[in-house]
Each structure stands twice: as structure tokens, then as C-alpha cells.
């Protein structure tokens, strides 16, 4: 069971309190009606599925209930960083250098 740091509670807590919520930094388009079928398909279904660091969303569902973002390595299952929703996508190179 993972330990996950909630950036809102500023606490590291067991995975049981959290729920995974899909890939991060996929913003809903401002005006979906202007999107082509292909663009809309990509928004709905196409995800990066990387081997290595993955930007993803979690929700502290059994705590403060906030959605937040995380970088997790899909090989080691290790969290490199968690950060609040709305904050910019962190730079991967500097993150890995810090590890």
C-alpha cells in the first residue's frame, strides 16, 4: 500500500484514503462544439500510458476530498511529486535530477 502526500492537507497518508482519477493536465476544451471528431476523440480516449513518470490525478476522497496532481513512476510505483490542481506541470528533468 502506497503512502501519498496530499498537497492540501500537507500530510502523507495511506493509499486507502485516496482514489485514482486518471491522467492529469487534460483540460476540457473551452468550446467542445468547435472540435473536429478526431480532436474530440483524442480528448476523450487517447492517453499517454508511459513507462516511467506519469502525470496523473488523485483525489483525497476519504479526507479533504480535493483533487490534486501527482507525478508517479509507473515502473517503480514511486511518487516523485504531488501538487495542487491548477499548478503548472512540473519540469520532469529537474524532478528526476532531484531524485
Amino acid at each position: 500500500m502506497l503512502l501519498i502526500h496530499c498537497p492540501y492537507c500537507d500530510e502523507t497518508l495511506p493509499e486507502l484514503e485516496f482514489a485514482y482519477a486518471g491522467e492529469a493536465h487534460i483540460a476540457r476544451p473551452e468550446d467542445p462544439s468547435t472540435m473536429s471528431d478526431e480532436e474530440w476523440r483524442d480528448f476523450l480516449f487517447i492517453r499517454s500510458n508511459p513507462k516511467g513518470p506519469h502525470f496523473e490525478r488523485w483525489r483525497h476522497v476519504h479526507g479533504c476530498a480535493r483533487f490534486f496532481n501527482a507525478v508517479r513512476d509507473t515502473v517503480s510505483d514511486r511518487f516523485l511529486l504531488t501538487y495542487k490542481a491548477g499548478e503548472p506541470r512540473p519540469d520532469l528533468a529537474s524532478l528526476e535530477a532531484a531524485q
Partner: protein
Amino acid sequence: MSQFRIPGKGRVDHAKTVRFAFDNREYTGLRGDTVASALLAHGVHLMGRSFKYHRPRGPVTADSAEPNALIGTSRGPGRFEPNTRATVQELREGLICESQNRLGALSFDFGAVNDALYPLFPAGFYYKTFMWPRSFWDKLYEPVIRRAAGLGRAPSEVDPDTYASRYLHADLLVVGAGPSGLMAALEAARAGVRVTLVDENAEMGGALLSDPGVEIDGRPAWDWLDATLAELASLGVRLMTRTTAIGYYHQNMIGLCQKLTDHLDEIADNAPRERMWRVRATRVVLAQGALEKPLVFHGNDRPGVMLAGAAQTYLHRYGVKVGTRAVIVTSHDSAYHAAFDLAAAGTRIVAIVETRAAPPETLRAEARVRGIELLAGHTVTGTRGRLRVASVTVNPVQGGRVGEPRMIHCDCLLMSGGWTPSLHLFSHTKGSLQWDAESNTFLPGRMTENCHIAGAGRGLWGFEAALTDGAKAGADAARALGNEAKAAPLSVAHDRPGTGESHRELPTDRRSSRVRAFIDFQNDVTAKDIRLAVREGMRSIEHVKRYTTNGMATDQGKMSNINGLMIAADAVGKAPPEVGLTTFRPPYTPTTFGAFAGYHRGATFEVTRRTPIDPWAEANGAVFEPVSLWRRAWYFPKGGEDMEAAVARECRATRASVGIFDASTLGKIEVAGPDAVEFMNRMYTNPWTKLAPGRCRYGVLLGEDGYIRDDGVIGRLSDELFHVTTTTGGAPRVLNMMEDYLQTEWPDLDVWLTSTTEQWATVALNGPNARKVLEGLVEGVDLSAEAMPHMSVAECRVAGFPARLFRLSFTGELGFEINVPARHGLALWEALMEAGRPHDITPYGTETMHVLRAEKGFIIVGQDTDGTVAPEDAGLGWAIGKKKPDFVGKRSLARPDLVAPGRKQLVGLLTEDGGVKLEEGAQIVLDPDQPLPMKMVGHVTSSYHSATLGRSIAMALIEGGHDMEGRDVYLPMPDGTHRARITSTAFYDPDGSRLKL
């Protein structure tokens, strides 16, 4: 006292005998024995039959790695456990155990015919079987071979034991209480660290228990052990025996399974049998030691053939000689010490067969002193003896040539192929392994967790090396935790260091087709099977493993993995590290389902949610059904009614007068704030801006993919407050989805979302007399059709309680839903029952609710929809706010797939024979005479008998169904094909006139 038990020797209590039974024969053992040691003390080696070939087998180890001596144990009804290791199960008074996997007596097993037929069962047998003619499967495989192969029988009764579960936080967890683990715990505890030390055995000490001649700091090993355990206890170390670290999970979480009662003569009432610990440790020391490898030669599985280290353990821990005439065969120095100790105890060591040409001179000299014949540069090419080894054939090997055989009589053959570090837990962490060419074994490499590995677990050998390394690991861990620590020096006398060589199969002069040299004893895998697998194209070690089943038995390949790898690598023609090791997975040893389930069984398996009105339903004879976590009243049978009769009565009463229904489980969410209406416009398909306060509307929620996710009636209580209802099972999902959009897509909206499902009790009144029942109880609102039309909501008082009163209908009748604070729910229900008495008010359950709504064609999300149904498909196109610029899922309604012809659409279905009730899920075809496989065009989603209509009704999803009204379709069922006509889904009162009361 038998000739095999040495009076006074070992750690067993010679003054306390314990009676037990094995295969219906009474035996006695001593307190402290295992089943295996007690049977060996009686000269019994034959303890089981092998998995596939039914070959006679005896214990090959003295520990949890045991592949052969698996028994069933019992202590009364429900307390039968199969596949228990006789080498681990402690003796208790009255223990009843039995051998396994035999057809007939253990000494004469009819299943042994499999052994004679062994050429039929090569590697990949199970895969090849699938290719054979079907008749083989039906006539031979299933009835004969499958029955003859396998492990113990599964218990058939409910387990009466309880299983506990605990969490533990530790600064340092030390796994394994041998020399390394003890020293690690000691040094860390001395430095002030909070330490937990666990060991799977009944007592701590590890290898020290089998080597009492060693002296540590001037004290005999066992005295030193006592003093060390006393110091650990005085330092506050948590000491846990009979506790197996079964898995090493992320971020230093270790699962421990602690056995609490299996060794006790009597069990206290309610004492848990086992306890699962979930330990989160800041640092971990793995001191799991090493596992001795068998040598691979023809007949290495005969009872009486055993690991040399196991014989040494039986001697020193249990005071048991495993035989009177022993031959040793070894490639490692350690077996010499076993031979010397056994010789000192009176076992005649007939010969030491040494595979190396030049063993160390010191050991040669010691053998010579004891008059033991040493056959260096020799091999073993076979054993004989029906149920127990009686002789062994040895041959000299020179320049790779196997010389003339010589037969040596013996009653036990003790083997050692060297030692392999126990890497299981380390492998769970995905730590990398490094091949050590010198010792021909894998050693732990790069760590992924905050973990230290000490002693034989990282390839060190000898007590001084293990103790020193453990002390260093403990001090390192303490320093990593911020404590000052320095490992104190140790002195060890009479140490037994050693080295050895590794082998594949031992050289032999037998034709290879006649060699049966076992690698995986539990799964009956031979060296030949591994080579055959490679010849048949398996190159990856993972494929070899699955094809041969090597290492896949319940012992997880503890003894077989390295031998299997060495042989596979040789067959592939690569170095072992290029072939690699298969993955070890938790649990380390077989673990009961009870330990995993813990408290989650029976009534505490899951939370049961009950409504405030549930006690009334129970007192009034309701039959319940589970709906998500809720238990809901299903129907209320009267006077011996069955379900069908009760539901028909409830339906008729509701349509004729008035029915009352507990709808408290409906999900409820309050959407509040200045931007509430904008939020609702964006979430739901419907337009909300023009919905006036005091009115409500049926809302449809889509996923962004355009498919229906949920529905429910939503009331607007004020400009800034909506009372949203959801399906019973959908409430958490809907709130999660709303929060997701609010928090991450539209954080600028000023809206608050609150789950109020459990704050409101909800009672539905339906039927032409509903208003009459309610009228006298309502204050503060005019219930007339003019003042409160269909789809209205008002805040008022009902039966004296503050209430949110909805006028709506899920039955097609005049209907009201009264929400009161949950604590008043029962009182409201009772007041309504009382007020309804003149109208013969009838309580109904979920089944009647389902029938009444189906008669009206109202859908149930999740029953009539399945996550691929768009609003148009379900006939809900009218609920789309087409003028709204956007809402969740709107863009997807124009996706190519959603506008393509031939989508499955929801229709009504009336069977030709109204007495036939279709099965929900039944498949629909257009032409019942077409050849198989038929083209299926849809399926039945809802089907009921309608008392109101006097016939069956159904709903179905059918390709292009909306354009097929009036057409006949067919439902082929096992009892014949039914014909049904496609209709509208509004079976009853299609104009809705009954709502207009």
C-alpha cells in the same frame, strides 16, 4: 523410547509426551516436536505421495521450504487444514493428521500407476492435453488423471475460527531471528531504536538452534541465545515468533501472518487462530538466511533422502537421528559438519560422497580421524528401496567420465548442493539481483526500499560472518534513523565457515531416458522436463517455468529455482544471469484465506446500510434484497404469499387506492450557491435557467462520452438551491463527478456540493388516494392540483416535521415524496400508515416499484442502460437542452458512432403468449430459423408479470428498435423459441391522464 530419539538431547521436553495420530495410527512425540520430527523419531520417513506420479515421499527439509511432507491436520468440525507442512506443524495433544494424495493406503497407492506411465506426462503435459482429441479429455483426463493428481482435499465445512487484523508502526522491523537478525535487532535496540523482530519458527535462534557447539563471546551458542533474547526483551523489543513475513510491499509495508493457536492443546473461546499484521516500518533488516539446495540425481526423491542441514536440525533441535546408516553426498563443506555431528550421536556415516575432486584438507582430516570413508570426485547415479532408501550407487568421475558403480547400503542419504540466499522478500520490492559467478547464485543488488540485508541472505557463510554482518546492519539502520550506533566486536569459537560448488544434474552413467532426477519435488518436475521444454522452444525462464510448472508449487520454488535455472541456462546455452530468475511473489509461504479476510466475513463482510424505516419493515415481515450497500424491503408478503402474489397485490392496491414506499436510499445532493443554476446547466442535459423555484424536473446526467450515467428528479427550492436526487447506487459516483468538474474544470463557479442522502428520510405515496392520505398531515402548503401541480416541490411541515415535499411520480399515479430529517423518518412513516388506514394503505417494496415503473416505461439506469446507451437510444431525447451551448457529454452526442444507424434502442416487448415472462438478459434474433451462430440483435433488459395488465411485459435494447414498432422478434431459449412484438415502452396509461388528479 525409540532407537532414533536420543535421550536428553535437543530442545524438546523429554518429560512431556504428546499423543497424536497419523493415518489412523497412534503415536507419541515430545513437547516441542513437529509432526515430522515426531514421526522421524519413530523411524517413519514415508509421509506422503507426490503430486503427479504418486511417488512415495518423506521430508526433505526441517522447515517451511518443505515440498514433500504435506499433511492434512484436524482438530474437530470445520478445523481441517490441507497441505500443512509436517516440518512446521507443531505437535499438540490429540492432533489428528493424515497423508495426502494417495488412493488407498500410503504404503500401497493405486495412483502410483501414474509413475509407471510417466513417459505419458512430459513437460507441457497440461498444454499438450488441450490439443488431444476431445474424447481424451472426457474419458481419461477429467475422470482419471485429474483425480489422481493434486494436493490435499479442500475443507468442506465453515471455518469456526476467527482471524484478527492489526496495524503496526515500527522504526525498525527485523525479519528473521537467526544470528544476523538477532544482532541487528540488538545493536539497533541498544542505540535506542523501537525494534520489532519476527521469526516464522516456534522459537528464535535460527541456525544457532542447529549448531549448539558454536561459542559466541565465550558462551555456548544456546546460553548466548538465552542472554540475547533476555536483553532484547529488556530493551523493549517486540519479539514475535510463529510470525511469517509473507510479503514486502511498497514503502516498507510488510505483511506478517502470526499463528496463534495451531500449536496449543486447547483453544480459548474466541481466541483468534491467526493475526495479520500490516507493518509500516521506517527501516527494514532482512535476515532471512539461506536455503539449502538438493543435488539432482536419479532417485533423489526417495524417502530417507534429505538435506544434510535438515538432518543436523533434527539431531540438535529435536534429538532425533534420521537414520542409523547414513551416506552423505555433497558439494559444500557444510554437510561435513552434519556428518560429524551425526557420527558423534551414534549414526554410522558409511561414506561421504564428495562431488569435488579436492575438498578442504581440514575436513578430510576430520573425516579421517572419525574413520569416515571419503569418496572425493564421486557422483551418485541412483538410489534403491521401495518406500525408503536402502542403498545408493556411487561412481568415481574422472575427466568427465563416470567410472564403475559401487552400491552402498544405507537407511538415509543426506545431500547438500550448497546454499542459496532467501531472496523472496527482497524480490517483492523489485530489488535487482546480481549473479555471483563464484558461488553460482544470485545475490541482492540495488535496493528500492529503505532496507538492509544481512548475513547468509546476502551470501555470507559462517556464524562470525553472519553475527558481525547483522550487528553492522543494525547499527546502520540505527544511524539511518538518526541514532548514534557502533557495532560492538564479537568473538566466535568453533565456527563452521565453508564454501562449495554448484552443479546441474550430477554426472551419470545411466541412459538419459532412464534418469528421474527431481528438481521441483512438489510439482514432480525432473531435470529432463526442463531440457525438453527448452528443446520444444521455450527460451525465456518464465516460459520454462510455466511449461514445466517448475517453481509453481506452494513452496514457490524455494528449493528448485536455482537448480532449474542452472539446467535451463545450460540447455539454452547461455550464462545463468542472461536467462534470469523467475519472479517470486507473495505470500512467502502458503497463507490461510482466513488471515487475509480477517474480520471481513459473515455479518461484518461489508457494511449494511439501513434506512430509518428499516426496523418497521423488519417488524412487518418484509423480505429484503441488497441494493448496493443498502438492504431494502423487497416485498411485504401477507399470510403465506409468495413473491409473485405479494407483488401483484401491492401493485393492484397502489393503482386502486394508495401505496407507501420507503425511498430513503435515493441519493441526494444539495447544489447551492450563486452559480448553482449555471453549474446545473453544465452538468445535466436539461435546461435549468427557466425552472422556477418550487418546480422540479427529471434530469439526465451523461458522461463526457455521451452515455447515460445517472438520472433523477431535481427540485429547485430557491434561485440558489437545488435538491438533486440520484439513483440509489449512483450517489457517490455522481457527487465525485460533480466535484471533479467543479474543482478542476470550473473552479471559478461559486457552488457548494453536499451529500444529503443520509440526512433525509424519504417516503413515497402513490395512488389515486395519495392526496387524501397526506392532506390532514400537511401544514403550510396547499396540496390542490392547481396550487401544487405535478412536478412541484415545497418546503412545509408534514406530521409536524419540517419537510421537503415533492409532487412527482415514478408509478404513473398521483404521487408525492416526503423528505423529513432522517431521525423523524420512522415517525412520519407511522403517521402516514395511520392516516392511510381508511384507504387501505399498502406498503410495497422494490419489486413492486420496479413493476409499476416498467408499466409506464420509466427506465432504471444500470438495468435498462449499460454504459453504452445514449439519451436518444433510451427515448430520452426530449430531456436534452438542445439550445444550451454546452453540457457534459453534449459534443459526444454528435460523435459518428452515436449518430450512426443501427444503434441499440430501448423498446417495449410483448410476448405472443402473455403468460410467458421472458428472462432478463435473453438474446433476441430476427429469424429463428437462421443457421448457427445466429445474429443477435439485442437483449431483454427488464421483464415482469404485470397484474394491472394481466400479462407479461418487457423492455429490450434492439438494433434500430425505434423504427421496428409492430414487428415480431424471436427469443430462442432452452425450453423453446418465444415470439414477441415490439411496442412502445408505455404499456399503461400512455397519455398520463392518471397524473392529472
